[in-house]
Structure formats: structure tokens, C-alpha cells
């Protein structure tokens, strides 16, 4: 076994265990969020092993760092428990979770059922593939329209959130 394989097993099992920890930790939302951090950072380490350095950095910076800190901020600020939702809403939330779970499971099964050789065919990638230079050039030349659309969508979301929050403050 090479060092890479050993590291892959370490971080892979860490990701699985902490993902389970996140879902099963129903009593303590903060512990749940911290498990999510461990999952994200282990996934980042796996991206590193795949030599996808930019994706790894963004995975840790955005998902491991910023987003879960925001989760924590909200969790700590609100200190919500499930009793605070009305029962009808609770049933709706559970239904949403079941639908999401079944969809993801179906996707995994379909992916596993596909011809495994198709995925396993090794191909050489061009020099610097997936680096920040290539990604930047691709984003701002070929896909510039999509980037602008995504940013417009985010802007709309920000403005919407501001309006919702402002109504409460006023």
C-alpha cells in the first residue's frame, strides 16, 4: 500500500464516521455542525490526494470554514429545539428529509449500477488541469455568461433576505 492509499482510507473513514456523527447527533446541534466541519475537511484532504488542489482549498475555505461558521452562528444565536415548530410543520420537514434521502440513495444506486469500467478508464489530464489559472480562464471566457447569471441569482437572494430582515426590524 502506498502512502496515498493509507491516507485515503484514513480520511475516507473519517469522512464517513463524522457524516454519520452529524446526522445521528440530534441532541446537540453544535456537535452536529462540528462533525460537518470534520466531514468537509476530510473531503478536502481526499481532493488533495486526487491532486485537485484548488477544489481542496475551496472546499476547506468555503464549506469547511465560512458556511459552517454561519451555521454555528445561527445555531448559537437561536438555540432552536424541534418543539418550537408546530406539529404540522414537523411532519412536513420529515417528509422533505425522506424525499431528499430517497433521491440521493437512488442516485448512488444508479451510479453504482453503471458500467464500472467507464469510470475507471484512466486518462491523462493536460498540464495544470484544475489549477486556479485554468479555472479562472475557463470561468471568465467560455462560461462568463453562466458566472454572471449565478452572481445575479445570488444578488437577488441577498436583496430578498435584506427585505425580509428589514420588515422585521421596522
Amino acid at each position, binding site marked *: 500500500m502506498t502512502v496515498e492509499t493509507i491516507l485515503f482510507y484514513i480520511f475516507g473513514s473519517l469522512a464517513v464516521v463524522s457524516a454519520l456523527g452529524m446526522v445521528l447527533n440530534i441532541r*446537540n446541534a*453544535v*456537535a452536529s455542525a*462540528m462533525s460537518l*466541519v470534520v466531514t468537509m*475537511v476530510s473531503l*478536502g484532504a481526499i481532493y488533495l490526494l486526487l491532486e485537485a*488542489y*484548488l477544489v*481542496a*482549498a*475551496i472546499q*476547506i*475555505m468555503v464549506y*469547511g*470554514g*465560512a458556511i459552517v*461558521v*454561519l451555521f*454555528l*452562528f445561527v445555531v*448559537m*444565536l437561536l438555540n432552536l429545539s424541534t418543539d418550537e415548530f408546530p406539529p404540522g410543520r414537523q411532519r412536513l420537514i420529515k417528509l422533505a428529509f425522506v424525499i431528499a434521502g430517497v433521491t440521493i440513495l437512488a442516485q448512488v444506486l444508479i451510479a453504482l449500477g453503471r458500467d464500472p469500467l467507464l469510470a475507471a478508464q484512466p486518462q491523462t489530464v493536460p498540464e495544470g488541469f484544475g*489549477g*486556479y489559472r485554468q479555472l479562472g480562464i475557463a470561468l471568465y471566457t467560455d462560461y462568463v455568461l453562466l458566472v454572471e447569471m449565478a452572481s445575479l441569482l445570488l444578488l437577488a437572494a441577498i436583496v430578498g433576505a435584506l427585505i425580509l430582515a428589514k420588515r422585521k426590524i421596522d
Partner: protein
Amino acid sequence: MPIEAIVKVLFIFAVMVMGLAPIITWIERKQSAVMQDRIGANRADLGGITLLGLLHPAADVIKLMTKEDVVPDGANRVMHLLSPLIAAVPAIIAFAVIPFGGVYQFGDTTLNLVAADIDWGLLYIFAIGSIAAYGTVIAGWSSNNNWSMLGGLRASAQMISYEVTMGLTVVGVFMVFQTLRLSDMALAQDTSFRIFGFLELYLGLNWGWIDWLRLPAWGIFYQPLGFLMFLAAIMAENKRPPFDIPEGESEIIAGYHLEYSGMRFGLFFMSEFIEIIIIAALTATIFLGGWAVPLLSTDAIIGGISSVMGVGFATGLCVLIHFATFMLKVIFMIWVQMLLRWSLPRFRYDQVMNLCWKILLPLSIANIFATGLVLLWVKG
């Protein structure tokens, strides 16, 4: 290769973490004493020897180690014990990508004074820094104390806000040096430019003195606004005064580390001081030329010495000169941070947030735009 890496890691640990960090606590005390017209730390003595107060760091460590480690009632024990580690480890491993010198050729062997010379060095630092936020947030939450909780909340809001700005303030530098690799940035600054070169370029004037008036090609001369904004943002990330609202003694006692004692408090304390060194090393590398000697390029140094002493000796001496230059710049930046820390009063919470979102963020975006325009104009 593994042995080389281990030697580098041990060197970083011995010099930067274990060597420099305790000395900085002494510098901090002496700086505050000078600025407040006191004598300063001079009481710790071993049989009458005080070494200008340099024994104080050792006395601190002994005190912190032998103190009782209290975990408050109702605290989340595991998180309470883990969070000082989450704060300290990212600060230490960030040194991996800092170039302490350039790349040197000794016959067949090359010496690269970076522990991990990766292409995405700055992104690595930002990624590590975003993980460090959890140390303070979780410390505040797990202590089961309202003041700590407020400190943790403030820390999470402040660190998220300034992470965004910190990234945007250095984009101008990426554009100028066309790289994210810290060793390449330092190498690009190992040269100089003519201050009035534009006269010859655009007006065709060919005066002899134009060649002699030179500035080192440092990031601070290309991106002066970027330097100031980056320093402000990264100092806010470190949560030291004037940005220490997560601790704010006058409002929330000691904030997130209120319920910590002994060496666990010591770890928070240490991570803050290690981050000072990281900030100094990072600003020195990005904006102050890193290991480069101003106006004397590597080739000039090696060429000048080797004509007298031989190439091998000249390269070895050059390594030492570059390392000493880098450390001088680091110590200068540490001193600048101490000076700011003891001159400015603590900002209010809303002032810190306004500075980030209403001043630094728009200014850094304007800086990116202006840099792009100038680069387009100069490079065509």
C-alpha cells in the same frame, strides 16, 4: 525528501514557534512599558540575573503549566478541551508555505527554503485561517457562560466578515505578480524598478539619472492601498486590539476564553502570538520583498562574493544573508503590530463591522478594478 522535510519542519518549529513566540510576549511587555513611560517587565530573576526581563516568558510558562485546569460546571467537556487545540494548530501549520529564503544551487543539490512549495500557497493560508475561527467560536459556546457565548458570537461574525475582505485585498497583488505561490512572489520582488522609468517609456526622454533612481520591486510600492487594507483585515482576523471585541474586557469580561485557565488559556495566548508572527511573515513576503535584499539581487550578491571567496561559500553566505533579511522584515512587522496595538483604543462592535463592509470591501474592489486598468494599460 522526507528527511529534508522533517528538518525543515523542526527548524520552523524551533525558530518560529518555540523561539520567536515567547520573545514576542517580552517585546509586547517592553513596548507597552516604553509607550506608557514605565520600566516594564524586569522582576523575574534567577539569582539576581534578569536579562532585561527575558526570563518572564519562562516564568509565564511555569505558572501556566502548574495552574489548575478548571472545566466549568455544565460545560461541554470534549469541546471545551478541544477548542484551544483548534485555535493553536492552524496557526502553527500555516508556516509550511512561508519562504524563509529562495532556491539555491550547491553543485548538484538544490536547497529550497520552503517546507511545502505549493502552487496555491496563499489559498492554503486562507483555508487554514478559516478553520482557526472554530477555536474561538467553540470555546465561547462550550464554556456555558453568557459572556463567553457573546464573545464566541462576536468572534464568528468578525472572522467571517474579515475573511472575505482579506481575500479581496490581496487580489491586486495576485494580478501584479501573476501567481499565488508565495516563493514565486518573493522571487518576483528580488529586483528593482526605475521610479521615473515612465519618462523614458512614454516621453522618450533619455536622461542618465533615470537609471539610477530605483526602488525595490516590492508589493508595497505596487499596491500601497492593498498593503494597508490587508494589514487591517488580517489584524482583525487575529482579534487583537484594536479589533479585540470578542474579548472586550470592559463589556464581556474576557469573552471566549473567560472560562479557561492554566495551559489551555496559555494555548489561546500562544496561538495569538504565533498568528502575529504569521501575519508579519505573510506581509513581509507579499508586500516587503520576503527574503530579497533591497536593490541587491541574488545574482549580484553571489556574483560579488564569489569573485573573492568561491561560488560555494558565496551561495552559503547568500542563504544566511537572505534568511537574516527575512527575519529582520518579520521582526519589523511584529514591531509595527505592537505599535498599533498599544496606540489605538478598542473599536466598538459596529465600528469594526462598518470598517469591514462599508470601507474595506468597496475600497478593495475599487483597488482590483484600478489595478486591472493599469495592468491593461502598461502591458497592452
